[in-house]
């Protein structure tokens, strides 16, 4: 009880700090310089309608690469821990028939939706991460439906690796070949503003991210479900 009271007191202190900020907080009326630049010059510079996307993929592309890396690391840790504590004999309850059927039906649909989301990231809300998550949820559904079914882990990891490599390679190409720096999206023509094949590398990178995130999250889910990616390796 004393501990709780003390915790309360300390969180109160923290709250006071935050309150301090809230009290001084005034909603912005104008954009900061950099943000204004993104809004005003961004579409012309990068050719992406969704400014958030251009910020995510290009302006702050290194963050995004880091973000992908984090997910990659998290997936690796999950894989590692599950790998270290393999439990082969666990019997898993099968999902109901309805679930099975539904998942078989829904699986390609969800995949397509996911692909749509990341392919249109530069035009509308959404992008690689959201699309990837949607793809992963398709896998979740399948796993829920038939937990004992082996999913193509190898395929997943190949997709993940290749998309990751391609991402890095494209980024490096920006620094190495045509454009001005790492992760510059302008190594291919920007195309016509507002169309699917525009904004240079952005849709490609988002696709790669989508694939990578999707496969990573899927493998996390599968791992947590109790299988290791390369059981056949042993």
């Amino acid at each position, binding site marked *: 009880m004393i501990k709780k009271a003390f915790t309360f007191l300390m969180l109160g202190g*923290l709250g006071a700090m935050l309150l301090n900020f809230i009290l001084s907080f005034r909603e912005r009326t104008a954009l900061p310089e950099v943000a204004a630049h993104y809004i005003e010059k961004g579409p012309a510079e990068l050719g992406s309608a*969704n400014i*958030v996307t251009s910020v995510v993929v290009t302006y*702050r592309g290194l963050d995004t690469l880091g973000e992908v890396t984090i997910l990659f690391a998290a997936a690796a840790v999950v894989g590692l821990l599950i790998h270290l504590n393999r439990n082969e004999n666990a019997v898993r309850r099968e999902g109901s028939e309805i679930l099975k059927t539904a998942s078989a039906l829904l699986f390609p649909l969800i995949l397509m939706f996911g692909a749509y989301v990341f392919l249109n990231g530069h035009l509308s809300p959404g992008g690689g991460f959201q699309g990837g998550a949607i793809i992963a949820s398709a896998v979740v559904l399948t796993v829920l439906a038939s937990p004992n079914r082996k999913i193509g882990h190898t395929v997943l990891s190949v997709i993940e690796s290749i998309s990751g490599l391609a991402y890095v390679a494209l980024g490096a190409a920006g620094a190495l070949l045509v454009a001005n720096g790492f992760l510059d999206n302008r190594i291919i023509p920007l195309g016509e503003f507002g169309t699917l094949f525009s904004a240079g590398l952005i849709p490609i990178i988002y696709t790669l991210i989508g694939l990578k995130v999707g496969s990573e999250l899927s493998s996390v889910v599968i*791992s947590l479900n109790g299988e290791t990616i390369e059981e056949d390796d042993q």
Partner: protein
Amino acid sequence: MIGTIAVSTGSLLVLVGLWSALTNRDIIRMIVGFTIFDVGIHLIMISVGYISGGTAPIISNLSDIGVSYVDPVPQALVLTAIVIGLGITAFMLTYAVNMYEKKGTLEIDKFEELKW
């Protein structure tokens, strides 16, 4: 006004999440606390970029200058932060599962093998 409400809500979520992480001995619920903590932070971040009456920073037409857009930068940051949050949550849960398998309990104060 919306911004202030959002900051306040975010702050409250931060505190509630921390309270949950600090007082629940159950590891799963500590992790839930952390996700709430994260959501709070995200709210605060977005509200910092919010501009009254601003629209989403998606430009449908290159020529319509003069529309007030909200700041895209915090949104980009939050996007990143959410994914990081997912990574960390997945990670914590994997730990939790493994810890449970090793010890058969999920109470944080049962994991004091290392101290002093």
